[in-house]
């Protein structure tokens, strides 16, 4: 415990200062008032985007300060964050996850694979990109996208 206390005192505030606020997302159904629950679905990725998403919600980038929070259930979520190309086995669970999310909801495709199949285009287990399975509202390209870019996309939803 003393070690942990010393670490806390030494590290202090780890989060970097917030960049300027981006524009809000278009659409009348995005009036969530600064509280957004994010349900992350990995539809078949190489885990690169997962690491970036974990970094986004980590202490350095701290997406939680803008009101975005990772939630445990699609029913609690406002944003479904899709990473990875949609494989055959995951296409139905992905669809069910998005359907289980109550309106108003936003579907975010993060990473080149989710946006347009990326390096896995034409692969043997690949069913398509995210927009082939569900309606995507916001695409975040990159392989993998930097946490800054993911934060900016989330801030467009939370408007904070």
């Amino acid at each position, binding site marked *: 415990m003393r070690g942990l206390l010393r670490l806390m005192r030494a590290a202090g505030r780890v989060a970097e200062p917030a960049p300027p606020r981006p524009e809000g997302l278009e659409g009348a159904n995005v009036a969530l008032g600064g509280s957004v629950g994010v349900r992350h*679905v990995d539809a078949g990725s190489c885990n690169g985007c997962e690491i970036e998403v974990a970094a986004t919600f980590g202490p350095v980038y701290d997406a939680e300060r803008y009101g975005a929070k990772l939630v445990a259930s699609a029913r609690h979520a406002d944003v479904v964050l899709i990473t990875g190309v949609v494989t055959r086995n995951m296409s139905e669970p992905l669809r*069910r996850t998005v359907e289980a999310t109550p309106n108003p909801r936003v579907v975010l495709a993060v990473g080149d694979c989710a946006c347009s199949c990326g390096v896995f285009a034409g692969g043997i287990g690949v069913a398509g990109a995210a927009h082939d399975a569900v309606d995507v509202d916001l695409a975040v390209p990159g392989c993998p996208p930097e946490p800054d870019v993911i934060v900016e996309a989330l801030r467009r939803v939370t408007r904070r």
Partner: protein
Amino acid sequence: MTQVEVGLWAQLVLALATVSIAVLARPALRARLAGSAAAALGVAGAVTGVIALTGGQGRLVIPLALPVDPVVLSPTPLGGFFMVVAGAVGAVAAVYAIGYVHGPSASSTSWAAFATFLLGMQLVPGAADAVSFLLAWELMAAASTVLVLTEHRERIEVRSAALWYAVMTHLSFLLILIGFAVLSAAGHGTSFAAMSHVDPESAGASIAFVLLVLGFATKAGIVPMHVWLPRAHPAAPSHVSAVMSAAMVKMGVYGVLLVVLQLLPAGRPWWGLVLLALGTVSALYGILQASVATDLKRLLAYSTTENVGLMFLAIGTGVLLRAYAVVGPAEVAAGTTLLLVASHAAFKTTLFLGAGSVLHATGVRDLDRLGGLGKRMPTTAAAFGIGALGAAALPITCGFVAEWALLQSLIHGARPEDRLVAVVMPLAVAVVALTAGLALMTFVKAYGIAFLARPRGPEAGVAHEGPASMRVALVVSAVVVVGLGLLPGVMARAVVRAVGLGGIDVFGVSGLGLPGVGAALDPVALTGLTLLVAVSVLVVTWRMARRRPPRPVELAWGGGGVRVSPRMQYTATSYAEPLSRVFDDALRPERDLEITHAGESRYLVERVQFRQQLEDVVEVRAYAPGVRLVDRIGLAARRLQNGSIHRYLGYSFVALIAVLIVVSL
């Protein structure tokens, strides 16, 4: 003839009428006529009980053509109270039975036995001397054994259940007989009035106390003599189980109250400790077994053990505190017993009748195969829910009021000067608290698994509500549970005063006040406050619901998986699994794991079969060895009967010589 005597005659006549109807009526009309007559019998019993409770006197002497004393029926107020309980439960069960009985339970034997059972049960509290008591007791026991055997052709386990029940109930009869014999020898007379002159300090009184308590405890279902309860209640038809659980075991409690309040009033402290010990062990063991039971009726039977344990705990507290001259809490404790009796009768009737409806509708008692019944059987679900609330001692039901009073008498009963009391009372509080918590879990499990979510098996998917008489009976008993919970005060005060105790008063709008311990509870005020608080919440939610009504969807959220089915729901076994792990030592489940490997390699598994069985620990550890020993003795004794006439003549000769020697000494 006084009103009480009229009432007693009415009961005898109505019982006879019901038996005649059962035997003579056409099968098509039998249920309705016999059921109505039996209900009238119950109502007559209840009315007689009310008259006796409010001070009516009466004495009925029925001479028998046997060389025993005539039957003397003269109910005291205490007896009157138990007559009310027995009569009310019997009447409700009879109405229920009109719609419920089918097959063997609709036969004339069954209805005749039911009427006899009700009569015996209602006459036990009215007996004024030991002989009448024992005759009525035996009538009750014999009739109930016949009733337990009703479905013995359809289900094989019914036969062994009836055997266990018959043996245990006659064991109790024997113990009570010997106890009364000791007391009447000391008091020089078989009437209760004569026995109440026995000196409580004498050895004879203590021996009689122990025998009587053990005998009544066996009838009441106290551990370790409870082994017949979890077998007999599931074996009997539902209306019979309801009467047995809600009214018949109360006769055991009546017996103990008779001993403690009337026959040997100024008891010794260790008597109270004996009752307390029996009560605490039964309460804990009963609710523990109930919480891991998956058979609905077995769960309710064990819950009866728990509640009777609480009643014994209350009586024991009263005796102990009175022996230490802590008068206020002692009176409250004794009065609490009566509250517990009434409350348990009300909610256990509701629960058993509800379980009967479930059985009638689905044909299964196994909670692991039920589910989703709330949508298909709304009346049963509502009534069972109210009964479950009462059993879990939650507001606003009679169970809550009774448990509150019990805790008050325990919390304020401790006096630091008496070290024994100072140690025992906190332990009793802890036991009551733990049983309350476990009862909560048990009934959330019973209600939630059976009535909520989706059916776990095909039988539950085709369930439907029963005929009108069943629904009426369920609604009436549920209303009583809530009514006694909302307005306990006036009734409680009347009953307690009639029995000769003090300690309970009316507070507020028919709430309970306990001046001896300085506590009060007004359920109406609590309800009013709840409604006030709830109004704002309800208004807000109603307006939100109007603006954005809920949207129905097909699938529940299960991680998005594709292979979802109702079989993935938690079952009753899984619900109780954490608890059975925590109490592994007390429950000792039998676990059997069978792994079939693939022929080619031991690393590949073809089939895994897991079986878990929770037997009654007391039966397996204590009774089974005893039964095996008796079997061995019996087998050995058969060798005496080898058919040789010479040997039998030899036995008679030796016996004659022995008798001559003994007589000459």
